[in-house]
């Protein structure tokens, strides 16, 4: 009996020793020498592993950041400037500052505004739906409403509004990682500058169809009338493929485009005051009048003047409070070049 116990003890001890030696050598052989700064960088990262930076996760970002000569190409959108400042401090690089961004849903085709002409049955996935057909409504560009973006968001910042059928971004939670934008097969979601105190302007529509077809499909769509582009005094509105786009790097948040948009496709958010449509329109009208009164002054500034030549006429129409399609259409395509020249120059100087 006692010998059995003895043998058991001996064998177990020997086994333990042998395995310990084996483990020691294995550990030695597979030891990886790593830059200790990788760990340090990883520690200050948000740890969401969302991939918003373009790397597989926070560790991968840390490795890349340590390897890179500077921080030009590596930016953690989730951590933002605070985290990047810490990273820069650890690595001794120059601090990279970027304006905070936020995901913006550029579709306002609510259930009410966009009549459904089809019904879908199948996997509730925008990807699947997009591959199959144009969507349940007459608009082949708008939100499909299956919530791929909601699923893609790791931060719980997106949710589907059951009333409108559109995704809603929770700005507090949004980290601008861009996962939703990648998930959207219609490329409706865009990362835009968050703006001062969250104030920003955007065109909430990406429909590239021509005006009449768009109007039929959705009441809230951008019909491509171009009034906003002609009103804008900051050259911030790009007008292409029958749809307006506000360049947020140039937008001065003056809200004039929002006021003149006949369909309400342009949205200004987080403004402390409600939009004063009449006031803004009066301001625009006054500016036009002033510009018209002094045509000779602005005359020579040729290039820009030509471009802005269309401006005067269209803005007059909505100012009278009649955004009828007839007028807008005419204005969009054949704004009369006679009226003003250099109106824009003037306003720019004023500011």
């Amino acid at each position: 009996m006692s010998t059995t116990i003895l043998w058991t003890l001996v064998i177990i001890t020997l086994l333990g020793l042998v395995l310990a030696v084996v483990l020691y050598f294995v550990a030695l052989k597979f030891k990886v020498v790593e830059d200790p700064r990788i760990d340090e960088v990883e520690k200050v990262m948000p740890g969401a592993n969302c991939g918003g930076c373009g790397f597989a996760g926070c560790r991968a970002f840390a490795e890349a950041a340590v390897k890179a000569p500077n921080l030009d190409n590596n930016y953690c959108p989730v951590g933002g400037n605070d985290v990047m400042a810490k990273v820069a401090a650890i690595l001794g690089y120059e601090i990279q500052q970027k304006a905070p961004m936020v995901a913006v849903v550029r579709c306002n085709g609510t259930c009410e505004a966009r009549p459904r002409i089809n019904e879908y049955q199948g996997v509730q996935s925008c990807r699947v739906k997009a591959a199959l057909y144009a969507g349940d409504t007459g608009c082949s560009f708008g939100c499909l409403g299956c919530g791929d973006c909601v699923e893609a968001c790791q931060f719980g910042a997106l949710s589907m509004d059951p009333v409108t059928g559109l995704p809603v971004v929770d700005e507090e939670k949004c980290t601008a990682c861009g996962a939703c934008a990648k998930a959207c097969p219609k490329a409706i979601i865009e990362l835009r500058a968050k703006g001062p105190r969250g104030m920003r302007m955007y065109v909430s529509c990406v429909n590239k169809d021509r005006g009449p077809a768009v109007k039929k499909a959705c009441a809230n769509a951008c019909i491509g009338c171009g009034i906003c582009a002609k009103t804008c005094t900051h050259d911030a509105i790009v007008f292409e493929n029958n749809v307006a786009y506000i360049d947020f790097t140039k937008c001065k948040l003056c809200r004039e485009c929002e006021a003149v948009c006949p369909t309400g496709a342009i949205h200004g958010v987080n403004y402390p005051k409600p939009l004063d449509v009449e006031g803004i329109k009066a301001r625009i009208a006054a500016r036009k009048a002033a510009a018209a009164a002094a045509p000779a002054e602005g005359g020579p500034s040729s290039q820009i003047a030509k471009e802005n030549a269309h401006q005067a006429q269209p803005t007059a129409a909505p100012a009278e409070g009649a955004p009828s399609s007839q007028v807008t259409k005419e204005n969009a395509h054949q704004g009369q070049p006679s009226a003003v020249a250099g109106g824009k120059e003037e306003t720019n100087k004023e500011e």
Partner: protein
Amino acid sequence: MATRTFSIGGVHPKDAKISRGCAIEPLPLPPTVYISMSQHIGAPAKPLVAVGDKVKVGQPVAEPGGFVSAFIHSSVSGTVKSIGPRKDLAGNPQTCIEIAVEGDEWMEGIDTSDTLVTTIDDDNKAVLEKIRLAGVVGLGGATFPTHVKLSPPPGKTCEMLIINGCECEPYLTSDFRTLLEKGEQVVVGAAILKQVLHVDKAVIGIEDNKPEAIKHVRSIIKEFQKISSKYAGISVMPLMKKYPEGGEKQLIDAVMHRQVRSGGLPIDVGAVVQNVATALAVYDAVQKNKPIVDNSVTVTGECFPKQANLLVRVGTPLQYIIDYLGGVPADAVKVISGGPMMGKAIANLDAATVKGTSALLFLRADQTVRGQESQCIRCGRCADACPMGLEPFLLNKLAKNADMEQLEANAIQDCIECGCCLYSCPANIPLLDRIRIAKGQVLGIIRARNAKK
């Protein structure tokens, strides 16, 4: 001898060929046609006409926009009204030529008579050029330009031409009617294809649920073989009815007992497959100088008051066809272009037909509405049904997790999207919905990798 069929998987949906007794009748000309520039796989064609131009039937209105692209002809005579985007049956804009119909004046040189021409030109180059100029594309569904398929890549030889007369999809009868009514033309078309491909053997595969067609085509071949040696080596092979027999790879497996390797082409095992309707189009193009301006379309469905097989001009608005037969029935919830297994649900009835349109099928709610999805019970029915030997339950799970590596390892790229998995799933899991998308992604990854090499 037992009739042949493919070796793996397959399902047996109800035949439902309720329009099999309806002879092909020409549809009256619509007031306007919309001819799409995307009627084939590959790059859209480029318009050759301008607004205001007068065109005749059979006049080319668009030229190929790339290698895998085809000529498109006017299907009517009249005036070009507009060229621009118009929504296709999925609601996506495609460039279309709108032509207002005026009379029915055909291009000079097109033989519109019914006379059968059985003598075949020996000049293969000329024949191939005729096929190319006539804009012939595979009418079995893929709409792959036929002249490209008929020019095997160097180093590969074709041993057998297979004419696909399976029509394994339920409801569809246009190929069946074509075999019965234009069997002679199909056989001549087959002989032309055989000659162009330099093969001795051509097999017309017909499923054994169409005995009339098998008998009819056999007797025609016998007749023709007496006339000319060019018809030697053509035969009919009855095949056991099983879906998807008409799938290219399945058909080759059934007829030749050879399996096309993953990622390979039929020519790798010495086969070229052409559809019955394509053979007819080849006959028209070569013997009659007639490009594809019309095709037969089955209009059917239990809820549809009138079953029909119509000869429809390319670009006819779907609504026009439906109205001609009495409008959309009240209890129909879904209209499908093609068969119920692989056809596309139509989102927009204002769309116009294309060369590849083979059927309009109306289904009631009880026939087509999917059941409530429940948990997978791991019965393996999807795997048993898959004709490619894949495991849809696994692919679906991997697709949900977006595990591209494992998806490729489990051969998702081999999926032929036949729908057998979803058809047979007792838990109503939308297997193919996800697999289809994931397959596209994996194919993209494979292509990107191959491009790098």
